[in-house]
């Protein structure tokens, strides 16, 4: 098993005929993902890597029932494309676009919450259950950073995820399912929302959170641990400890807003809840080892 996506997950790729869509579909197929159809308005009847293309998601799923969609769609069309997938009954959606308008994101997330759907993104590499399925863009040199294993990973970052996950592999572990919730101010799904699924996944033995300054997602993880919703070992890495308050360095989300959003507050909240927090990527492996040792001795 894995969470969100496994070998059984039937995937529609929206925007498959585009350059990125076609390129990563090839790679997704190679990684075992069960891509059943592609969608590009106006291109019905074509195929890409032998996968049939349809005008609309509904027409695609009428011919090829699907559980999940991954969107290679520009930011300004993302809201429409997510609504289209939801309208066709799909309840697991990954949207990769970087630059989705903020108020569109609020609307997408609100809709997802109302429909009890999981929409992951934007500004993310996507979701991968290594060796089983992939919705998004993960590296070729996968064995060094995305080896199959038992660590659930959730992240707000891209390159940093490669950096940190390579440390997981270096420490002898691998990844069960990695979910890139994305680096935007309004992630369409939030860390804590997946913790119950990781808790129930027999193939996940611990979870690693790659957080960042700004927002309150890490504090929500701490609350979920405190509330007993997640009881497996949890390790976090959070960058930005030395970032000056109020300076926007990267993502819109990385703004320190008063007493919340600072790395200090996040670290305090997580540690108070019993999680271990690394101050640098290389410390992640050690903390995982310690967490497992402690779990065994208990």
């Amino acid at each position: 098993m894995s969470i969100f996506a496994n070998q059984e997950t039937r995937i529609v790729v929206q925007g498959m005929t585009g350059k990125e869509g076609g390129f990563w579909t090839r790679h997704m197929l190679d990684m075992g993902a069960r891509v059943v159809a592609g969608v590009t308005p106006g291109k019905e009847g074509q195929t890409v890597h032998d996968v049939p293309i349809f005008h609309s998601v509904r027409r695609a799923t009428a011919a090829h029932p699907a559980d999940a969609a991954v969107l290679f769609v520009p930011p300004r069309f993302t809201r429409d494309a997510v609504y289209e997938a939801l309208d066709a009954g799909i309840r697991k959606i990954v949207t990769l676009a970087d630059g989705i308008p903020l108020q569109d994101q609020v609307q997408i997330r609100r809709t997802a919450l109302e429909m009890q759907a999981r929409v992951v993104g934007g500004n993310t590499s996507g979701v991968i259950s290594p060796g089983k399925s992939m919705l998004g863009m993960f590296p070729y040199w996968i064995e060094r950073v995305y080896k199959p294993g038992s660590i659930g990973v959730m992240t707000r970052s891209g390159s940093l995820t490669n950096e940190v996950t390579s440390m997981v592999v270096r420490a002898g572990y691998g990844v069960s399912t990695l979910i890139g919730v994305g680096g935007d101010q309004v992630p369409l799904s939030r860390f804590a929302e997946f913790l119950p699924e990781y808790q129930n996944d027999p193939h996940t033995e611990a979870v690693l959170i790659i957080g960042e300054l700004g927002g309150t997602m890490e504090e929500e993880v701490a609350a979920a641990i405190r509330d007993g919703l997640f009881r497996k070992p949890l390790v976090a890495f959070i960058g930005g400890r030395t970032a000056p308050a109020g300076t926007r360095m990267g993502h819109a989300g990385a703004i320190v807003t008063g007493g919340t959003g600072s790395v200090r507050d996040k670290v305090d909240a997580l540690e108070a809840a019993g999680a271990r927090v690394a101050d640098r990527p290389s410390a992640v492996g050690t903390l995982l080892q310690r967490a497992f040792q402690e779990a065994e001795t208990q």
Partner: protein
Amino acid sequence: MKLFEYQGKEVFARAGIPVPESRLVTCAEREHDRIAAEAAEAAHELGGRERQTVVVKAQLDMGGRGKAGLIRMAADQGEAAAVSREILAKGYRIPALLVERAVNIERELYLSLSVDPQRACFVFLASAEGGVDIESLARERPDAIRRVSIDPFRGLQAFQGRALAYDLGLRDSAIGSFTALVNALYAVFRNSDAELAEINPLFLTADGELIAGDSKLIIDDNSLYRQSGFELTREQFDSDIAYAAALDGIPYVQFDGEISLMCAGAGLATTVFDLVNFGGGSVANYLEFGGPNYHKAQRAMELCLRNRSAVILIVTFGTIARADVMAQGIVDAIAALKPDRPVVTCIRGTNEERAHETLRSAGLEPLLDTEEAVRRAIDLAAQNRGRTS
């Protein structure tokens, strides 16, 4: 994009939000005497026959302007000129002075509209205690802040504006003024794709009028393509380099240390920033080289060379941002720009083997470990220190 007070007030006024009558005096590249004279002239016009007091407000993106002496009252022309000179003498980069007719204030309120990322709605915050730092107030006396959530599809409802008005203790004509203002602020927020629309303080006058005492309006950068009237200008940036970087879409922040960062991805860049500080180094600039900018090695290096750093540290770990393309870009940039300071490279990711060959053939050592690269940069900065200071 964060607007200056005067820009936000222009947007407010167009939406029907009352703002004080004002004149703008631009400062860039002008003599202080000339600016002070114009401020005095503005005070004269605004003061009118009754010789009303005016307020001179420095326009710059900075909290606590009042305490810093950048907002000053002036009772007449002469005082207006004098306080303008005093403001300018403080040495801040001030693109303009806003001269406003003073308002006869009975109470100061707080009102803002922003986004709740968790509950996925818009949120009005309001307080009967305006004019103070809202974040401190939120920490110390959260009950003093009223919160009203707005469904992003149904939009603001009339009852919600009324509820805020009554909860703030408003009465009589102030209730109608307030609900109209709430509607207008909502329209501003939605129509201009704002991240934040804040009025603090919101003045309540003795005759129940409401007037925006300040404006804080941040437009969502991702929505600028569907907005008009919000242009990037030099005034919004601390330095020419940051402005140039922004025009190229390259995230850049200036610091005063020794190591120029060229890192791929906000998360990794921030982490490298930490590692430099942890190791006793100091950062000259933060720069994101990656994502949509991974082809822009030369432009990124140019920006780094424009500041007085001692070393350039390049750290990437890209998937789409291919390592081989980035490495070739770096090699070409070095050939073209002939940097006067050492370059440390730690380039990993898609096609990294080819990347490393490229670097080696250009005489660069391809490091593989981020922490090692950071240490190397710190050491080189120390060695190079004498040269740059």
